[in-house]
């Protein structure tokens, strides 16, 4: 085997120009194949992050506002808050909090405008991968502010004249009474979110909105995935028991993993993989062609090797390995090219703008590329190897 490898390498080295020329197609095809898988991983991560921004990171449980089955009245918010705190303490849930949607108005230079106001806990940021373009997200310190802290959308910030956050810019929010809020952070533009939007802490909302203006609170819990089902049932049972009979209590998973939907990128990925496969097949065909011609030209050399003791299997292996070695080199070049392309800022910015987590080039993309290159090499080497084995030694030498 080592001898066959040495032979194959020597052949590759001697004919490197021809081999490299014939392998350009394979290298490009492998780059396309590995690139598609790599870009697919980046796009999937971007999509995952987008889904996590909406529904929370897996596993996010949500306690929808319980209500009386007979009257339809919502549970007392103060009582529900106390029950929530009990649950969080009992199960040591680090990331949890209420989410309340409300509609408020903010005073801009050109008049007051309606803004979607969401009251959250500081934990909401990591739970929903909230990105901050300028400034910062809430901290526990913000809960004790007299002027509520606000994190506003880019559109709100621009409309306020894009003030420097270092100057602690304030804004008047109209709720139960006009309240001055301090902008501590600005969200990046998000095509999936309402343009005029702001986050405030729960304590801040209490200062701004009249109780009637705010929707009933929902409670979110970010729990370990493996405990999600157990905790879902336990939280439901505990809240129901604490509220007493007659209340409808519902706890659901709201993260994307619980949706059971298929990957929307799958069809595109299949088409791209198909195209890459086609390129690979064409590359393999031209490789077979060149290899066959080359073997016919190398009949004398094969005869000489046979005369000096090369067995038929050894000749088969050497010709086969030569092809595999060459396509493997092309595969490595193709994978390197794919890594350079997929990791480039430009491509990432195009495929997955605003990606939070760094996505390393997926190992499976490199493996798929190298395996495909090896397989192409083996297939392309098979025919020439069979031809080489059938060479009649003395005829070949006198050829």
């Amino acid at each position, binding site marked *: 085997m080592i001898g066959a490898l040495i032979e194959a390498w020597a052949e590759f080295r*001697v004919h490197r120009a021809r081999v490299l020329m014939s392998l350009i197609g394979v290298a490009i095809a492998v780059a396309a194949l590995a690139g598609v898988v790599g870009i697919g991983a980046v796009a999937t991560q971007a999509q995952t992050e987008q889904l996590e921004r909406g529904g929370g990171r897996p596993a996010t449980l949500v306690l929808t506002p319980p209500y009386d089955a007979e009257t339809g009245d919502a549970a007392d918010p103060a009582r529900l808050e106390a029950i929530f705190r009990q649950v969080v303490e009992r199960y040591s849930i680090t990331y949890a909090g209420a989410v309340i949607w409300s509609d408020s108005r903010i005073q801009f230079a050109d008049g007051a405008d309606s803004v979607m106001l969401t009251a959250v806990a500081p934990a909401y940021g990591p739970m929903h991968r909230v990105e901050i373009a300028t400034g910062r997200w809430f901290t526990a310190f913000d809960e004790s502010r007299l002027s509520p802290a606000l994190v506003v959308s880019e559109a709100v910030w621009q409309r306020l004249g894009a003030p420097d956050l270092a100057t602690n810019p304030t804004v008047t929010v109209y709720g139960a009474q006009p309240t001055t809020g301090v902008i501590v952070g600005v969200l990046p533009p998000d095509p999936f979110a309402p343009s005029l939007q702001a986050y405030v802490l729960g304590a801040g909302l209490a200062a701004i909105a009249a109780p009637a203006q705010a929707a009933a609170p929902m409670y979110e819990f970010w729990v370990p995935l493996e405990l999600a089902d157990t905790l879902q049932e336990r939280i439901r049972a505990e809240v129901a028991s604490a509220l007493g009979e007659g209340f409808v209590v519902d706890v659901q998973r709201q993260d994307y993993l619980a949706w059971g939907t298929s990957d929307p990128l799958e069809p595109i990925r299949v088409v791209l993989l198909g195209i890459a496969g086609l390129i690979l097949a064409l590359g393999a065909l031209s490789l077979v062609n060149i290899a066959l011609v080359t073997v016919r030209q190398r009949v*004398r050399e094969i005869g*000489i090797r046979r005369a*000096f003791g*090369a067995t*038929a299997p050894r000749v088969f292996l050497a010709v086969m390995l030569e092809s595999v070695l060459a396509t493997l080199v092309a595969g490595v070049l193709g994978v390197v090219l794919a890594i350079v392309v997929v990791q480039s800022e430009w491509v990432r910015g195009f495929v997955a703008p605003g990606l939070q987590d760094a996505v390393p080039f997926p190992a499976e993309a490199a493996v798929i590329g190298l395996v495909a290159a090896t397989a192409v090499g083996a297939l392309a080497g098979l025919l020439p190897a069979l031809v080489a084995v059938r060479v009649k030694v003395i005829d070949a030498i006198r050829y």
Partner: protein
Amino acid sequence: MALLSLEQVTRSVLLPDGERLEILRGVDLTVEAGDHLSIVGRSGSGKSTLLNLLGLLDTPTSGRIAFDDRPLERLAGGRRDRTRGRDVGFVFQQFNLLPGRTALENAMTPLLYARGRDFWRRERIATQMLQRVGLGDRLHSTPDRLSGGEQQRVAIARALVRGPRLILADEPTGALDVDTGAAVMSLLDEISSASGAALITITHDPAIAAMARRRFRLEAGVLEPIVAAS
């Protein structure tokens, strides 16, 4: 014990028109270790076919060939290839060096099919053999940078690196001028004698054939010893 023996060996091929062509007829030959014999014959006399059989590259239509007293039919497939690689060295008329490879790489080629120590020490062994044939300073020259005589010396080194017991030289001087040819034959004779290997030279040149201790003529497929006139 004979190194190589042929008893009543025939070789025929079937022509496309269905007729059978007899190439070798009842060839008897015994080669002992250290023998030096030559076979002369005109083109078409069956020299190449005989070379194939002597070099374990072909099997006879009838008769018996034994290498080291082992009948050829017992050396099937890979075993025969390995025996050939280990015990038979070829020197060809057209040198048949591998293009693009240096003299050293060419001389190392048979050692790629060796096992154990010979395989791992192939570079050293090939270097020593090239030095022995006077090419110590041309180790890294490719065939296109070597003269005809030098190329044939590389071919001789290549034939000898595995220490074969039988050297088959097929028209070894056919592509060389008279002086170079004589020098190459002397070298071949000297090295094979020193190593105790049998040397069979197939040639159409009576002068080259005369250098052998035993001489044969192949004519119309029949091998006959040439008896010296004196």
